[in-house]
């Protein structure tokens, strides 16, 4: 009886429209949208050659050398256009160039507006001035060491040393994908809701029919919950696989644990839906609306719609992130990816486990009624 029930419970969930829409299509669509949106952000971070107009006031050999170095190579920093001052100003006004370099004894920069490009130009000119001074000094005091000085100047010296705190991918945008997986997991509450509704005589006619049958309610409920968890697990694996291998989202190296964690998160969604379905008596549509509303609020609080909300909550109400199951789920993925030890990850997994147990026990307590006061 149990296996018979289990087989049909899995079939029922996998064929349900809500399952196909929310747990299969929705992550594909939203994941793709995220990828497209964040992909353009990454593209914007690549460096483009900056066009500048060069107005020569007098000869400056040192700067000419440096300008040649800046405008040649595989990815030159600048694209220099020599112009008269009036024309250069016109080009700057039209946006054809980002700045005007006035080259005389010293180099002056003129830009219009503020921004990343202007800052880069300012930095370049500043450096040029320093290099120019050093080179001129060297030429005047010790011309024989000029070559060595130029070599030293062209060597990048970094006073900071990068020490990685993690082996994982610290990309902030991956957090959105974690939230997406968490949302798919929590949408499993719709599946769990069905288990409760379909087994209670006062909630559905199918529930009434099942309660009249020769199969104990405990078997029906157990098969329903396990079947839903299996189906939900399938959707979670599908979601992670799609994000990782189709959209190429970098989730770090612990992919197996990520899969296991996401399946567990799916079970949490099912347990939450089962609990919501078991409490009180309301029309199925009302319960679905309640479950979806709760899910969406939890997703919002975990940062699915607004990336910085989690940070705001961490500052204003830190308990909110600790009790929000969606935040726990997405944090578990984050901990798995970022931290090399599993202590934080296991804490989050334990939190999920506690939620699953509490929701399931409460759900069973409410749903196990033998007789109903009204149907």
């Amino acid at each position, binding site marked *: *009886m149990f296996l*018979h*029930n289990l087989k*049909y419970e899995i*079939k*029922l969930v996998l*064929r*349900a429209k809500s399952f196909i829409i929310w747990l299969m299509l929705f992550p594909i669509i939203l994941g793709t949208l995220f990828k497209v949106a964040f992909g353009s952000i990454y593209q914007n971070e690549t460096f483009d050659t900056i066009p500048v107009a060069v107005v020569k006031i007098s000869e400056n050999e040192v700067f000419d050398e440096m300008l040649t170095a800046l405008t040649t190579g595989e990815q030159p920093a600048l694209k220099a256009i020599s112009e008269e001052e009036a024309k250069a100003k016109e080009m700057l006004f039209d946006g054809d160039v980002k700045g005007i370099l006035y080259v005389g004894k010293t180099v002056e920069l003129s830009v219009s507006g503020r921004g990343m490009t202007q800052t880069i130009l300012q930095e370049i000119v500043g450096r040029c001035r320093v290099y120019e001074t050093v080179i001129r000094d060297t030429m005047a005091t010790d011309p024989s060491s000029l070559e060595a000085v130029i070599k030293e100047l062209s060597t990048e010296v970094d006073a900071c040393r990068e020490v990685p705190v993690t082996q994982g991918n610290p990309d902030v945008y991956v957090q959105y994908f974690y939230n997406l997986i968490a949302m798919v997991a929590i949408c499993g509450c719709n599946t769990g809701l069905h288990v409760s509704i379909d087994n209670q*005589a006062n909630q*559905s*006619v*199918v529930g*009434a*029919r*099942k*309660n*009249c*049958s*020769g*199969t*104990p309610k405990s078997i*029906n409920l157990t098969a329903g919950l396990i079947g839903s968890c299996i189906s939900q697990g399938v959707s979670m694996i599908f979601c992670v696989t799609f994000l990782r291998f189709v959209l190429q989202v970098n989730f770090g190296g612990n992919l197996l644990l990520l899969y296991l964690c996401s399946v567990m998160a799916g079970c949490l969604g099912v347990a939450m839906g089962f609990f919501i379905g078991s409490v009180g008596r309301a029309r199925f549509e009302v319960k679905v609306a309640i479950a979806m509303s709760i899910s969406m609020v939890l997703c919002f609080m975990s940062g699915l719609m607004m990336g910085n909300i989690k940070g705001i909550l961490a500052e204003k109400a830190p308990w909110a992130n600790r009790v929000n199951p969606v935040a726990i789920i997405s944090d578990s993925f984050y901990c798995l990816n970022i931290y090399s030890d599993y202590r934080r990850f296991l804490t989050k997994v334990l939190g999920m486990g506690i939620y699953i147990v509490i929701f399931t026990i409460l759900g069973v307590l409410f749903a196990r009624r*033998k*007789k*109903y*006061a*009204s*149907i």
Partner: protein
Amino acid sequence: MKPTVVKIDNLVKRYGELVALDHFSLEIKEGEIFGLLGPNGSGKTTTINCLLSLLAYDKGEIEVFGREMTPTCYDIKSEIGVIMQNVAVLDELSVRENIDYFCGLYITDKEKRKACVEEAIRFVGLEDFVNFRPAKLSGGLLRRLNIACGIAHKPKLIILDEPTVAVDPQSRNRILEGIQELNRNGATVIYTSHYMEEVEQICTRIAIMDKGRKIAEGTKEELKGMIRNTESVSIEILELPGEIKEKITHLPHVYETEYDGTKLTVRCSGGKHNLIRILAVLQEAELGFGRVYSELPTLNDVFLEITGTALRDSKE
């Protein structure tokens, strides 16, 4: 004497102030098609839900197959087939899968279950629709699927709670014939309805319910024998002087006349040739009339006479 299959004794069910079942008692013998007849809200479905141990009741005892019925009597439940008032099938499963799923809640043996499912499909005539989802079925076919899901495991007791609501006449006849066939195959049937024609057509014994109480019980002949009315004569007549109506009222065996401006209804209790005597009065008064028909008493007349309200008025 045939054994008792269902015994309900002194059942009381209250919803707050409302008494849904008021000391209701019933005994159903093996092999019967027992009809529970009553208007909407009379307590038929509440009785069925209490009988199935779905609903908690305030007082009384219920025995099924000689044992007290409790929610955990799964062996008793295994012998019961239930066809709910509302169609209880799963939209995501096909016709065959639905029947197999619900049958599987009773029968574990795969081979036996398969045979039962095929038989149920044949029985309700859904052979051409086995791979259809419920959403693709018409109302009548859906009702048939609902029945198949309830009887596939070959129960000894079949409970049908208004199975023909919103069903076309053709499907209704098929369902009623099916119920009689199930009964011939050995099942005891409890049939609730507010359609008296259906109950009259198939039930061997009937209990009439009103406001949570059993107001009469017996075979249809016994029930009809409980009332004065033995014949109702209806005559379409456009003009009926008061003295003629009075004259008809005083004819032998006539106990009530009713005239609504177009139709005269005369109710008689016993006697023969009542129709001839009434028509003779009209001919003597040289009054023209249209269609004339004589009807034997129905269960509606029984209900009307006992409660003072027409059963038909309660139809949806």
